[in-house]
């Protein structure tokens, strides 16, 4: 009996997901179609990339509120470099960037911002909430400066392939998401670094006494969160063929929601990448279903809020002894 119960609790998010799909299939004949399936997958790909980074951060008992802004800035950097390159008027130089060069630069910028977050948090003991809140506005402001407040558009077909192309019958964003997830699973489950992430979040003091370099682990997870935000940004601008200065606004909320619904504890040390993927899927399926059912967007937000609450209450029941 207890075995049945614990199994049910363990797979609660998968069960919820399946139940949600069944209900939506009954309610709408447009839900269970290949097009809608790929649509949902494509839509969640960006959130999953960001949320994988968020999961690592939250596993160390941190939080990253700046993912949306880092996404926008990294995307804008890639867009600007692709479109205009860098001009250094005093030396009469114009650096032009290949697609790969621009993408690489975007990823580096994301990683750089994340590293800065980590540095503030470890070196100056700024609480993660505050450090990344500051970055949320810093990176947003930098995006506005870089773009002058206007969207950058038109990147050509090669670049558009990332967001809109298909490969072996699967959309490119889904490939990218799958790769990110696969690598993250191996990192969290199979590498020393992954082990250290869990140890730092589970008991920082015990981890320190075991010779784990706490600060190094933390800087890395924030850097990775930055890089993965940049990945999300690059997918987004490629899909829209446009880098909007206000892209990624409030993405941190969907991302935290996916992590939390997926059963990762905000007090650190417990959770998984697969859980987060499920969480993102639940949000994605719910979004799509509510749109198909013509539910007003205002109600959609309210329903999403209650789903988050419900997921966390279930998690609490599942782990009564954590604070």
């Amino acid at each position, binding site marked *: 009996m207890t075995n049945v119960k614990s199994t049910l609790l363990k797979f609660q998010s998968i069960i919820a997901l399946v139940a949600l799909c069944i209900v939506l299939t009954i309610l709408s004949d447009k839900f269970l179609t290949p097009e809608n399936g790929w649509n949902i997958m494509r839509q969640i790909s960006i959130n999953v990339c960001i949320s994988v980074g968020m999961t690592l951060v939250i596993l160390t008992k941190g939080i990253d509120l700046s993912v949306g802004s880092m996404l926008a800035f990294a995307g804008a950097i890639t867009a600007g470099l692709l479109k205009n390159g860098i001009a250094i008027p005093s030396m009469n130089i114009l650096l032009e960037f290949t697609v790969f060069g621009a993408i690489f630069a975007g990823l580096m910028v994301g990683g750089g911002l994340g590293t800065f977050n980590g540095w503030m948090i470890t070196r100056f003991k700024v609480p993660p909430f505050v450090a990344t809140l500051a970055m949320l506005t810093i990176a947003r402001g930098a995006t506005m400066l870089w773009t002058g407040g206007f969207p950058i558009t038109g990147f050509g077909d090669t670049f558009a392939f990332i967001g809109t192309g298909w490969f072996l019958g699967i959309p490119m964003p889904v490939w990218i998401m799958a790769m990110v997830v696969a690598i993250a699973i*191996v990192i969290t489950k*199979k*590498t*020393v670094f*992954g*082990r250290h992430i*869990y*140890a730092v979040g*589970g*008991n920082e*003091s*015990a*981890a*320190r*006494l*075991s*010779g*784990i*370099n706490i600060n190094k682990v933390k800087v890395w997870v924030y850097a990775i969160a930055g890089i993965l935000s940049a990945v999300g940004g690059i997918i987004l601008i490629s899909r829209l063929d446009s880098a909007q200065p206000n892209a990624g606004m409030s993405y941190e909320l969907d991302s935290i929601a996916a992590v939390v619904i997926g059963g990762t504890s905000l007090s650190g*040390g*417990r959770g998984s990448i697969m859980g987060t993927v499920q969480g993102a899927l639940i949000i994605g399926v719910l979004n799509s279903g509510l749109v198909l059912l013509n539910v007003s967007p205002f109600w959609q937000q309210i329903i999403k809020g209650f789903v988050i609450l419900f997921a966390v209450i279930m998690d609490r029941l599942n782990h009564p002894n954590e604070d």
Partner: protein
Amino acid sequence: MENLSDILFEAQGITKRFGGVTALDTVNLKVHTGKVNVIVGENGAGKSTLMKILSGVYPDYEGKLLFNNEEVHFNSPKEAMQKGIAIIHQELNLIPYLTIAQNIFLGREIRNVFGLLDSKLMRYKTKELLTRLDCNLNPSTLVSELRVGEQQLVEIAKALLGEAKVVIMDEPTSAISDSEVESLFKIIASLKEQNVSILYISHKLDELLLIADHFIGLRDGKMVGTIENSAHAKKDDLIRLMVGRDIKNVFQKEKVPLGEEVLRVEKMSLPRKFDKRSYVFKDIDFSVKKGEVLGIFGLMGAGRTELLETIFGLHPNLMSGSVYIENKEVKLRSVMDAIRNGMGLVPEDRKKDGLVLQMEITKNVSMASVGQVVKNGLVSSKSEASLSKKYIEALKIKTPSVMQFTKNLSGGNQQKVVLAKWLATNPKVLFLDEPTRGIDVNAKNEIYHLINSLAKKGLGLVVVSSELPEILAIADRILVLSDTKINAELNQENASEELLMQAAIL
């Protein structure tokens, strides 16, 4: 003859168990009206547990409490408070960013006719209370601006506001200066005059002789004796009261031939974090040979834990001094350096510092040496499991599986997992800080045997313990840490509980 009304508060046959551990065993205690009743005993004797029962923190226990000859039972500190029993904890429970008056009236705020706080009246009453305590602090001062001694005063005032008839003080002088101690004693004297009974815990014997009216000795959870009229008591009597035990099946360490020197510490000093002119300990020198168990004894706050931590690389920016492993000086900038050079530390609080409780045994065991279970860049769960199996067998860890979460293990088995973690690093020197705290007698004995067998294998061991029989049983040589320095060094043959206690108290 004893007049009944002399006894205000009484505990009869109090027994308290935590899982398998008996913390208190049929303890009887009388609190005399308007007197200072002192409980003496070593660390871990059960003093704090007893206080928590008397003040309603622990509502389940066996035995009964009598207040004014009526049986009472407290389900919460609030209920005890209503009867007039207040406790002033070792760690003060004030809210730093509220004023003195706000703290004193916390939870009992006075409201005016509009239902709003009547701050003026509360300030006035606070002033009254403080005057009663001979203290001229301003009620509007923030608690965060007060010195520890003054904060203690506020706690006492808070107790008096609740019309406390019994005030329990747990180590009240451990954190305050000499002049503050003096004024605390004046306050205690004036409380006595107001017929308030004091129950006082401390192991600073000299000051106890100044203020105590009655002594109660507690050891290993049992009451071992009382001195009813303390006027003629001497320090030696108190020490006997604290340590005088019947010796029963105490573990006896096997002699192990000593090898080469494995650890040497020279001129090790650690200044206090916020006051660099004073020291936690200063110019400590000692060495440990292979196969030797060095005990370090000292009272709470003597800097034992900090000494281990410092050698283990936890305070690299504050400390000074040198550490030599096998005659080679090692640079200690971090814990990693210490581990790399063959040191391991089993910390005092295994739940807080030793284990990641929501992780499996396997991951805890490999935590400090995860490199040895990595194959092709990835952690191999198979070799990790076999590493754990090896230590589960060797240390007799009782668990249904290697994948058990450490939070589900008993205290003794948890401690063995922490030991396994360090043994897995193949250390040359192992530091153990209170290795048997909070574990039952059988597990204690097993740990002693383990320490013994590690010494046989040629490890150097440094064991910090505040339990006298323990340190006498397992250590070849004992250093007593007191007043920032090594106050005595005794070999097992000529060490005794009395000698150790005397050196520690000095």
